[in-house]
């Protein structure tokens, strides 16, 4: 098997059309604060699972908040189906990094998951109930409808917040380090839940974009990985993951290709630092100016 790590070949390998286009995105939170994102450019194609990895604090959450329309970029654009995003689009849902802060403790699990449907007048009560039930079933939480989030474990709470995003039936699901604060075993379970959910979803939601700082997780889940540099972040490299599917925690992770990609990413993330320190080099594929 040959896997190219050259970004120029990414286009040939994924024929689907571009759904999200991130172009020259820059963010500075305040005039006196340093630049967080420095000219991010990349595309997401329909049906892809893209993982974005980068060191902690490099601006990954900032990027996702700009992509989902809740944070205005200082310059640059994010477009969805060719239209620039200026407010949160109904085609997209974001699962936040910290579930303890993003779930509503005064609502039961069922009402948390129904929350995004509340203002949707086109749906009948029965249709809403059906969507909520299916979303909960997808993440294996049937039977916990009447619990309050505070009564559930961390992994279960994160599944509630994934179910909430699924009930919204977005075309694109953005996930911000969803498994960063659960233990290793729960994490593997949740990763497989995510892959299952993706395989089972018919019309909406096949496209996923997940931010993580865990290299192994990115390789295990993704079709393509976008590696970000240290802050202010730019795209350091894009690579296609051509590991066989369906993926499996034991086989995929011990596949020679898995190990090769992993070594390569370690190399890129390490080398990126040195090269930035040396003033940049043509060998990195940073899209910044």
């Amino acid at each position, binding site marked *: 098997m040959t896997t190219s790590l050259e970004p120029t070949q990414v286009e040939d390998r994924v024929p689907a059309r571009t759904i999200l286009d991130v172009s020259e995105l820059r963010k500075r939170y305040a005039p006196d604060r340093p630049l967080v994102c420095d000219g991010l450019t990349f595309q997401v194609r329909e049906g892809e699972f893209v993982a974005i990895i980068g060191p902690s604090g490099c601006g990954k959450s900032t990027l996702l908040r700009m992509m989902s329309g809740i944070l205005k970029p200082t310059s640059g654009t994010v477009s969805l189906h060719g239209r620039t995003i200026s407010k*949160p689009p109904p085609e997209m849902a974001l699962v936040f990094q910290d579930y303890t802060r993003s779930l*509503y403790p*005064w609502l039961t699990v069922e009402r948390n998951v129904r929350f995004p449907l509340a*203002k949707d007048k086109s749906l009948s009560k029965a249709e809403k109930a059906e969507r909520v039930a299916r979303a909960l079933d997808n993440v294996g939480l049937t039977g916990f409808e009447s619990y309050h989030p505070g*009564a559930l474990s961390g992994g279960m709470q994160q599944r509630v917040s994934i179910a909430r995003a699924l009930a919204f039936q977005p075309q694109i699901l953005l996930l911000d380090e969803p498994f960063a604060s659960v233990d290793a075993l729960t994490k593997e379970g949740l990763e497989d839940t995510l892959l299952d959910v993706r395989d089972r979803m018919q019309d909406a939601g096949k496209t996923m974009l997940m931010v993580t700082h865990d290299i192994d997780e990115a390789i295990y889940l993704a079709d393509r990985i976008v590696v970000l540099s240290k802050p202010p972040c730019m795209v350091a490299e894009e690579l296609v993951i051509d590991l066989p599917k369906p993926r499996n925690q034991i086989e995929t992770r011990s596949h020679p290709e898995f190990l090769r990609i992993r070594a390569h990413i370690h190399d890129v993330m390490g080398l990126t630092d040195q090269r930035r320190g040396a003033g940049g080099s043509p060998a990195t594929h940073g899209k910044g100016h």
Partner: protein
Amino acid sequence: MMRSALTTRVLPWVAPLLLLVVWEYAGRHTTSIYLPPASDVAKALREDWMWEHTTRDLLPSLKRFALGYLAGSALGILVGLAIGSSRRVAQYTGPTLEFLRALPAVAVMPVAILLFGLGDGMRISIIAFGVLFPVLVNTAAGARSCRQERIDVAEMFGLSRLQVIRRVILPSAVPMISAGLRVGLPIALIMMVVSELVGGKNGIGFYLTQAQSLFDIAGMFSALVILGVLGNLINWLYVRVETQQLHWGAHL
């Protein structure tokens, strides 16, 4: 086991019973008319408050209390939410509210009399004014402390600003609002009595002034007993409702 149950049940009653006994004894043996024995007060309670003055004075008082408390709370929650969820509104209104808040509610009464006359409108607005600020300040603080992620989630799902306030900021602020509402209860009770001391035709405050001018000292004491019981009853009711409604507060 038996003994500890007995002591926790019985001990709290020792002090009040002792007080009653001392009061009764002192009342019977003093020459002063200002300290009627406890039994005289009990007699006044039975004769006046079962049920003539309960319907004539207590019920109108309770009606004013309820209306004033509701009006003050509702206004406090509304304005508090507006202030707490918008930095701009907070900046415009901040100093004015700080000034108004520092005014003792009782001192506003002459102004209220000029504005509303000596009727129930004045009384209800005075009670509302007393309740307004503790509720408002607590609501604003509660709304301000709503975590940004919670607001972001709602905006990401396309909720409008008003929907965000109603469905996210308001419930986030409920524990603080509830604390403000509780602080407002005794204030409303005080303002109720004070507002009835002037120009009234009925109410517990009016009963007090009447009893005082007739040197009916036992009657005065009986009104104080009624007020004490009322205050405790209202607080007890409030705590019951609060613990029933706010069971998720621990997870906030």
